[in-house]
């Protein structure tokens, strides 16, 4: 059946739902239920993660094809089937999702006190949807997961969020949903043409250019909002600010990757000519995103909002990398996605540490934290540096590769993207200085406690990952190479074929 010998992808996808069933069946006093829910959720997510590690070890890095493929007929009359599989582009995002979920559950251990059971259920359902989305190889299946992710996230923001949570949740939902409807239209159009919804089969299918353009725009509407690209990014800061810490971590860590993943899975391979046609627009939007949102981040007073804007800037690097259509650019984009998942997730956790203690995210309320929380200051420094892409940390290889890739396409675009290096340093160091440095002026800050063992447990895997990805990125890059090389080759073949026809 596949390399693992059992339907591993389905198992990883649906195992969290088993945990949901267990949590649902627990009865008793509220405190008991809460504690049981926490432990069940943690163990479920840990087992899921352990299981997903099979992918890490069994994945054949030299093959560009889909692996661990599972196929069941679903709606054979319409060419729709249950088709799961991963390739070099998606496999690490499955792992990222399964790795971040237990950390999120651990991070919400104490900060979430009401409706714990529902909260944990929401997270486990979210995990199922995220993993399913990265594994799905059928358009309908993908669409279902892609949309279903919104529901638990909507609830997490809307129920356990901050003061303006309802506004933020609606904004998040409506923005992302509006784009998705257009994507559904595009999917139906493709199905109408090709008679199948299986992604590998559509790869073989040539779509006429005029149609490619319209489908590209429909996909773009959906994915650009998800990424988010400028100017449809404003839902993100609001959603981040209102979401609970763990919600922000998943939002930044995995959900933002869905848009970029969509570009790579659908737009670039299925619509090569339209992608090439619209690439300049993407460059412009990406560079504007980098410069514009970096500047906006510079003006923020709220820690979470600052990091949210920095996410938009980093995702600008990602979209730029994808549309360079060369090996360095695309691998750089993929690596940046992974690195951003780890680093910005960790930064949101860093904010969460302070928020749990002081219940404010205003930079001006802090200062001098390094004095009383030295371990925290060190951790925060590491992730700050990773965020500004210091070589040796996770942020660097991706940004470097994207800039190298972009230079080959257009040096001015590379210059624009590289200004993010300077602006990124400005806002991140401003944040760090405001929080950690300076003299302690408030008495309530003096009684802060340094990291607790639970917090160490949350941060240490992220620290290890950040350094590992910086010092030996090859162990991650090697997953991408074969698939990306094939993608680039196919793209070039399609483009040259198209230009030949145009020549005739």
């Amino acid at each position, binding site marked *: 059946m596949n390399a693992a010998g059992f339907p591993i992808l389905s198992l990883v996808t649906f195992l969290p739902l088993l945990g949901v069933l267990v949590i649902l069946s627990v009865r008793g006093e509220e405190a008991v239920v809460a504690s049981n829910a926490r432990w069940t959720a943690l163990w479920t997510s840990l087992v899921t993660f352990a299981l997903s590690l099979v992918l890490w070890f069994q994945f054949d890095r030299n093959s560009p094809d889909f692996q661990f493929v599972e196929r069941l007929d679903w709606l054979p009359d319409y060419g729709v089937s249950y088709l799961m599989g991963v390739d070099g582009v998606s496999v690490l995002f499955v792992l990222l999702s399964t790795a971040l979920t237990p950390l999120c559950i651990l991070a919400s251990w104490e900060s979430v006190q009401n409706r714990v059971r529902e909260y944990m259920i929401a997270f486990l359902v979210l995990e199922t949807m995220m993993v399913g989305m990265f594994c799905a190889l059928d358009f309908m299946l993908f669409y279902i997961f892609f949309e279903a992710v919104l529901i638990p996230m909507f609830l997490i923001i809307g129920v356990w969020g901050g003061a303006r949570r309802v506004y933020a949740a609606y*904004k998040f939902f*409506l*923005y992302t949903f509006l784009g998705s409807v257009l994507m559904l239209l595009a999917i139906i159009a493709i199905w109408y043409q090709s008679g199948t919804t299986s992604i590998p089969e559509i790869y073989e299918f040539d779509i006429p250019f005029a149609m490619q353009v319209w489908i590209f725009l429909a996909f773009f509407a959906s994915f650009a909002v998800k990424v988010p690209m400028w*100017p*449809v*990014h*404003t839902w993100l*800061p609001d959603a981040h600010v209102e979401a609970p810490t763990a919600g922000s971590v998943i939002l930044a860590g995995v959900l933002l990757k869905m848009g970029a993943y969509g570009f790579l899975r659908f737009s670039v391979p299925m619509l090569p000519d339209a992608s090439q046609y619209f690439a300049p627009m993407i460059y412009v939007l990406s560079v504007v995103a980098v410069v*514009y949102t970096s*500047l*906006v*981040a*510079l*003006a*923020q007073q709220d820690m979470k909002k600052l990091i949210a804007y920095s996410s938009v800037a980093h995702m600008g690097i990602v979209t730029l990398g994808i549309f360079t259509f*060369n*090996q*360095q650019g695309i*691998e*750089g984009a993929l690596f940046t996605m992974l690195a951003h998942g780890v680093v910005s997730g960790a930064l949101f956790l860093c904010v969460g540490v302070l928020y749990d203690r002081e219940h404010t995210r205003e930079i001006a309320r802090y200062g*001098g934290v*390094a*004095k009383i929380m030295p371990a925290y200051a060190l951790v925060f420094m590491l992730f700050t*540096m990773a965020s*500004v892409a*210091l*070589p*040796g940390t996770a942020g660097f*290889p991706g940004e*470097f*590769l994207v*800039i*190298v890739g*972009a*230079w*080959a396409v257009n*040096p001015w675009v*590379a*210059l624009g993207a*590289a*200004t993010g*290096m*300077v602006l990124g*340093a*400005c806002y991140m*160091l*401003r944040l760090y*200085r405001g929080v*950690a*440095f*300076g*003299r302690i002026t408030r008495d309530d800050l003096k009684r802060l406690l340094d990291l607790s063992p639970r917090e160490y447990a949350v941060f240490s895997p992220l620290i290890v990952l950040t350094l590992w990805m910086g*010092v*030996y*990125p*090859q162990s991650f*890059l*090697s997953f991408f*190479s074969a698939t990306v*090389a094939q993608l680039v080759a196919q793209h070039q073949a399609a483009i040259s074929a198209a230009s030949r026809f145009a020549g005739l």
Partner: protein
Amino acid sequence: MFVGAVFFPLLGACVSGFLGRWLGDRVAMWSTVFFMALAAICGLLAFWQVALSGQPQTVVLFTWMQVGELSFSWSLRYDTLAAVMVGMVTLISTLIHLYSVGYMSHDATPSRFFAYLSLFTFMMLMLVTADNLVQLFFGWEGVGLASYLLIGYWYEKDSANAAAMKAFIVNRVGDLFFMLGMALTFFTFGSLEFDAIFGAVQDHVNDVFLGIPSLELIGVLLFLGACGKSAQLGLHTWLPDAMEGPTPVSALIHAATMVTAGVFLICRMSPVMEFAPVALAIVTVVGASTALFAATIGCVQNDIKRIIAYSTCSQLGYMFFAAGVGLYQAAMFHLFTHAFFKALLFLGAGSVIHAMSDEQDIRKMGGIWKKIPVTYAVMWIGSLALAGIPFFAGYYSKDAILEGAVAAGTGVGMYAFVCGAVAAFLTAFYSWRLLILTFHGKPRADHHTMEHVHESPLVMLVPLLLLSVGAITTGFVFAPYFIGDAATAFWNGAIYNLPAKDMMEALHHAPHWVPTLAKTVAISGILLAILIYGFLPHIPGRVAAAAPGPYRFLLNKWYFDELYDRIFVQPARRLAVQLWQVGDARIIDGMPNGAAALAAGASRGTVRLQTGKVASYAFAMIIGLVVFVTLFLTGR
């Protein structure tokens, strides 16, 4: 041995940083010193084997990235260029670690300080032993980080935090160009490894990118990167502010090692730079201008550390224009000797500050030479070396640079020589101004401070004495190797000179008036300073009062900070707020929010229509019917 020289400091940093709290400060401090000493032994052995015995070597550790045809490893490249730097950095860093044990003894968290210091050394060593541009960039950014941490070491001081941020961000501006330089290098050569680049230079001489020869553009971009790190004109503003850090930091990072990384980069890239004459001319002009510009400012500053900082800036300018005229060997030689005497001057200044109860203003010093005789003596040695007085280290390297500038026989070479000669005069002048105001004359500090003036402990004096030995001897001992008869064997191909130019040969045929002139201006600068500040102390005040404009211009450092604040910082801040509050909040969010408001308004309007009165419904129906019928009829 090769690996040890680089990684022992990292080990020391980890021990001190992570275990410092359990080991206690004393153990942590001495353990970093111990590891540094081990590294220095390895480093000197490596220097012996590679540079003096001529056995270069590359140690490959493991692959870093391999993406398509872009591939490079973590590796340690030991050729003469690297070995010179490794030997110098480990030795000076060890001495400064030792000095810091005394200097930082009253600090609250010395283990943190030593961890940073060792981390810095590690990063610097990674930089100089890099085998490809990306690893060089790793060290490059790494030393930037360490410098940021050390400048802001006293993080409760606001000025220290501001200076640290400024250093990091200004450096980042340079790094941006470095990054683009790497991108273009890869685009041109298809590799970022030195061997591959240097081997292929000949094939790419005629490449053109954006209408500019590729090699020229690479040279300019990398030089802009070097400007940031080495504080050259335009990107120099962070260096004087960096003096907010503890004095050993200023000595190690902002004088001896990190700031010379830019010079090192240009020398490392000599096989490319040699084919980029315009880029080299730019290097020469910027370097020469910096040498002069910084020296003029150094003459009027009053903070003892800032004077030396501007002097560093100025000396870096010498190194750059030496490289610019093609005399990379002389640039490296000056870098090497400068490291000793500038570290000595800084540590000596630290000793003075220590003695004066943390006073840094030379206007509030004076009359202390008898109380701290050793410090006084080493400051003299350092200043003599800096001014280029015969037989001290600086004499050999600076003379070679000035001779080379003339020997180059080009317009920019002459410009560099003139700037260099004037700067040499000013250097001598401000050095003796500093010496006299600090040590001689009537005590201007208050009574209380004067009572506490004391010589530093032995642990600080030993490094000072060792460095002064270096400041005296490195010149004549190493001159034959770096720039003299043994140079070809010594460099062993680590530096490339275009055969057509052959600057090393030209150097020997420089006109004889050049060294004489250099000595004359140096000595006259010293005499002028002694005359004015030693015997006619009212003159400087009168000069300043007579020409308040130029004086204030110099005192305010040519108004660079104010200019940048106006051009970059303030507009960026305003723009940031505008983009956020108008762009995001009003325009981008305004549309969906407006759409939402429209929908809500429309629904409210529709609700009002449903009045429930049959008469109004009937009326609406009739109107509708009329409209439809009219449309139907006219449509036909």
